[in-house]
């Protein structure tokens, strides 16, 4: 075999938007093919929604049970995608040299972060649609003024950024196996004490303020205020989430190791 027919070198980078779109597409296909990820991000939230809205497992205070549970499950969806799934996926990409290899392609680090952000947004958009449809079928009647929908979107987005920052902080410093264990543990702990399915009013008054400072507590509290009680802008919860976002992203940016 001779090489006379081999194409001569012709280097050049593609346009950034098409690189980002291609990478985001690969990440989405990877998630869709991964059974555990689908379980974590889609099946578990919907199962919890159905179980906790129908059974008298917990007392959620006055008002309809689904009005309490649905906002909490939306927060859980963000927790599962922005934190657990992102942390585990990124930690293993780091472990297997995927991030290192991408560093030698024309896709810049900011391009890769944009692709990951797009992937997270796409998955969360799907989760929100699924959870809202399921909740409405279960009898959910949220406040749907323009102001409350915008406020809810703000809580979801700022909360998502906060969890992404924490995910990158964990994935960029711990070993892959440690991240796998820790990210699942945090998920379970926040599911228990993060105000997602168990009202924070059930906890002793002494720990309640601390629990409301957790990102999941602030998210579910903010979403409930907006979608259940129609409060305008949940300023306090948004402030808590913004603080988590700034701290998480800043530390992750300084400590993240690509290999």
């Amino acid at each position, binding site marked *: *075999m001779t090489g006379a027919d081999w*194409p001569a070198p012709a*280097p*050049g*980078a593609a346009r950034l938007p098409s690189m980002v779109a291609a990478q985001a597409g690969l990440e989405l296909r990877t998630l869709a093919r991964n059974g555990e990820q689908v379980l974590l991000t889609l099946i578990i939230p919907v199962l919890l929604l159905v179980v906790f809205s129908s059974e008298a497992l917990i007392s959620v205070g006055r008002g309809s049970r689904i009005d309490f549970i649905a906002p909490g499950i939306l927060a859980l969806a963000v927790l599962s995608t922005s934190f657990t799934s992102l942390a585990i996926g990124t930690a293993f990409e780091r472990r297997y*040299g995927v991030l290192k*290899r991408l560093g030698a392609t024309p896709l810049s680090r900011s391009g890769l972060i944009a692709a990951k952000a797009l992937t997270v947004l796409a998955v969360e958009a799907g989760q929100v649609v699924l959870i809202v449809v399921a909740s409405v079928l279960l009898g959910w009647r949220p406040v749907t003024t323009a102001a409350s929908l915008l406020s809810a979107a703000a809580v979801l987005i700022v909360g998502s950024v906060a969890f992404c920052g924490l995910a990158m902080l964990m994935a960029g410093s711990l070993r892959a196996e440690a991240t796998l264990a820790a990210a699942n543990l945090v998920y379970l702990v926040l599911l228990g004490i993060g105000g997602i399915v168990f009202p924070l009013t059930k906890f002793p008054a002494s720990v309640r303020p601390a629990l409301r400072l957790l990102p999941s507590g602030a998210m579910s509290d903010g979403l409930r205020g907006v979608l259940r009680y129609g409060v305008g802008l949940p300023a306090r919860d948004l402030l808590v989430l913004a603080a988590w976002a700034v701290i998480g992203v800043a530390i992750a940016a300084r400590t993240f190791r690509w290999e």
Partner: protein
Amino acid sequence: MGETPAVEICGLVKNYGRIKAVAGLSMRAERGRITAVLGPNGAGKTTTVEICEGYRRADAGTVRALGLDPIRDARALRCRVGVMLQAGGIPTTARAADYLKVMASFYSTPLAPWMLIDRLGLTESARTPFRRLSGGQQQRLSLAAAIIGRPELVFLDEPTAGLDPQARHATWDLIASLRSSGATVILTTHYLEEAERLADHVVIVDHGALVAEGTPAELTGAQGQLRFTADPALDTSGLLVALPPGTLAKESPAGQYLIELPSGTAVDPRTLATVTAWCAEQGVLARNLRIDSRTLEDVFLEITGRELRS
């Protein structure tokens, strides 16, 4: 060539804590050639290549790839340089063809993914997730990803490690094709046969420094060798007197003789006649008489020693 070399390394030093990975290495790789970097485990090959790729910062010395600084000019270099890591780098669940298509979409005028898949014998496994490919298939996919963007300079870190003979030959053909298309290839390898067959220039590195370099022919030299099998424990001193000064005779294992002519001397008809005449005098029959030259492996072991490296 008036151009700068594809890679130029001057006095490179890199330490990991107390370990001196690279200790003052200097070398260059000309454009359009295949340069093989050889060395025992831990000689500093991968560290050197990774500094050229911009993955690590040198502690001292200068490194230029295509005339550019691998860290300061990383952005400009990333689309011109192709990289094959020693292991990994590919998402474990990505399917072979899907992954290559995504890699292709990072470049302005890439090769067609199917063409590479076909050329590297991956057609059957195009839809297989990376983690379920065999080691050799993973290596070939990684090679395909390194060259899909049609780079000017390609770094291949042990490209044929763990390949079966068919896959190794397909890879060699592909690397030779890259050279004839005008690309520069830098490869590290443990296979001396690979360097001997492919490389235009061989660099032998040990303890983080250059110990020898040249074309394979220059390194193996014109030194002639003659091997034969006969009765064990013959006294060869009488033979050596009749051969050119500086000739060595070794018997290892018993009964297997190696006559090494001095450097620059080839085996000629007279040498052969001298050896067979001497055997006749001794009343022994020389069997399996063979005229040889040193291989790169002989040179490598001579330079880097025979002790095992961890």
